[in-house]
């Protein structure tokens, strides 16, 4: 394994110190417990929004802390859910008197730790509402699994809810918008290569030189199918058809299309994916009215991509367009 680290056990701390050094104007960083907080938090009268999860998915979530998006992020160890004391500290730091929204990706550990944090907050008289995202169509949603994973939709929900909170919408309203984005969004990903956590030091699964995994999770969890690598057009058709048919998205729909890189795929390939996605949707009468292309919810150095579609209405479009000023997502501000 070759990695630009000092020691596996220092990865999180060292990276947080780097973020603090680079972006101290936007965020405050605490280390015990690890929390990244918006520099001007708590914003009085505004719903606070926090999220969190294992590290290794940068820029999610720390890169999304700032005006118009998250008020705080709780980074766990690499691919390990953060702990309730982190979420408790974040909740307290961002509570401006209007309550706090917890946006939680549907992973067993994340859900349980956030549950414990919400129980603690209830004891401290801070109003907390949790919304769990579960947009990954690769997982069969049944009683026999932990349910669908929360992936790409999480990023879009954090942006849209952040804008809603800036408009001083109530906690219930912001939570409802979060649920709406999740309900109207679907994702699926694929991988060309595995990834290597610093602690393990070796790939978490293997793929042949000529193979890809369709339906991969953001920790390298296996997907629906392993197969020979195909041209981008064919790969996009596999991902997009699974996403489109699941909701389903239909003729006349306006969508926000999010082509996300897993960390090890160059932008030039993501634009090829976007082009194929645009053609695929056009043929079906679905119009991309907003888009996001880049590495936003990554899986360390994994090569691959995911496609997320969210059905847009006027309100969601307006909230998407609203100013945002975070480390990784920035428009309409300053």
């Amino acid at each position, binding site marked *: 394994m070759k990695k630009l680290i000092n020691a596996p056990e220092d990865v999180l701390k060292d990276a947080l110190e780097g973020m603090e050094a680079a972006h101290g104007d936007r965020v405050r960083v605490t280390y015990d417990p690890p929390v990244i907080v918006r520099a001007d938090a708590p914003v009085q009268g505004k719903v606070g929004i926090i999220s969190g999860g294992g590290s290794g998915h940068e820029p999610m979530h720390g890169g999304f802390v700032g005006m118009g998006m998250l008020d705080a992020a709780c980074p*766990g160890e690499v691919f390990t859910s953060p702990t309730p004391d982190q979420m408790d500290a974040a909740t307290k730091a961002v509570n401006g008197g209007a309550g706090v929204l917890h946006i939680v990706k549907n992973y*067993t*550990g994340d859900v349980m*730790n956030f549950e414990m944090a919400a129980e603690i907050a209830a004891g401290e008289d801070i109003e907390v509402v949790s919304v769990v995202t579960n947009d990954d169509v690769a997982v069969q949603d049944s009683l026999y699994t932990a349910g669908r994973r929360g992936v790409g939709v999480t990023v879009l929900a954090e942006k849209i809810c952040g804008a809603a909170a800036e408009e001083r919408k109530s906690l219930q309203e912001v939570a409802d918008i979060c649920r709406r984005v999740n309900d109207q969004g679907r994702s699926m990903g694929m991988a060309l290569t595995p990834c290597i956590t610093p602690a393990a030091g070796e790939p978490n699964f293997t793929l042949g030189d000529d193979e890809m995994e369709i339906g991969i999770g953001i*920790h390298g969890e296996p997907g629906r199918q392993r197969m020979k690598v195909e041209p981008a057009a064919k790969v996009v058709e596999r991902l997009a058809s699974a996403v489109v048919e699941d909701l389903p998205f239909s003729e006349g729909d306006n969508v926000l299309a999010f082509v996300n890189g897993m960390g090890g795929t160059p932008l030039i390939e993501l634009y090829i994916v976007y082009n194929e996605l645009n053609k695929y949707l056009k043929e079906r009468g679905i119009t991309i009215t907003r888009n996001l292309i880049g590495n936003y919810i990554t899986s360390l150095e994994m090569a691959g991509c995911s496609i997320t579609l969210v059905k847009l209405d006027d309100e969601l479009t307006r909230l998407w367009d609203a100013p945002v000023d975070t480390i990784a997502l920035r428009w309409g501000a300053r």
Partner: protein
Amino acid sequence: MKRFAAEVAENRGYLTKLDGAIGDGDHGTNMDRGMKKALEKLEATEGDDIGASLKAVGMALVSSVGGAAGPLYGTLFLQMGQATAGKSELDLPGFTTALDAGVQGVIKRGKAEPGDKTMLDALGPALEALREAGDDSDVAGALGRAAEAAREGMEATVPLVARKGRASYLGERSAGHQDPGATSSHLLLKTAAEAVGSGGAAG
């Protein structure tokens, strides 16, 4: 507790490897980090209140392990701590009651059932063995049987298809692998039995 921490440290690579096969490959590392923290907390806990000690371990695990194992093991020890609050000694029925409370907490937190291929598949049979032992005066023997039941439960997870946690995404592909959570739970029971067998304190 020290034995369990040492056992976890020694088996860190093994647990992580098991977890890599069907999970995300961090169980050993996370439990090792948590148990080191728990030992620090234990050393700072004064007095002979077993409940307070167990609670300190639970809090340390909740705040340092992360993942699913943090809330689950944390809840196990917190509930056991609550059931033994104020006690400086535990007889076998007392230990059984405490473990029962812990296991019920794990069930509530994780919403798993026996046979879901989780730590419950080791803890459940161990609890059953302790219940059967009643107030047997041979405490070490009873704990030994509980550890043995946990081992059998752990080994019985191999053919199971996971229905909870990250391994459940694998569906049928999770069969043929031993569950890492059941494995660490077996280590816990095994070290408790060894501690009592050699005259140390249980828990």
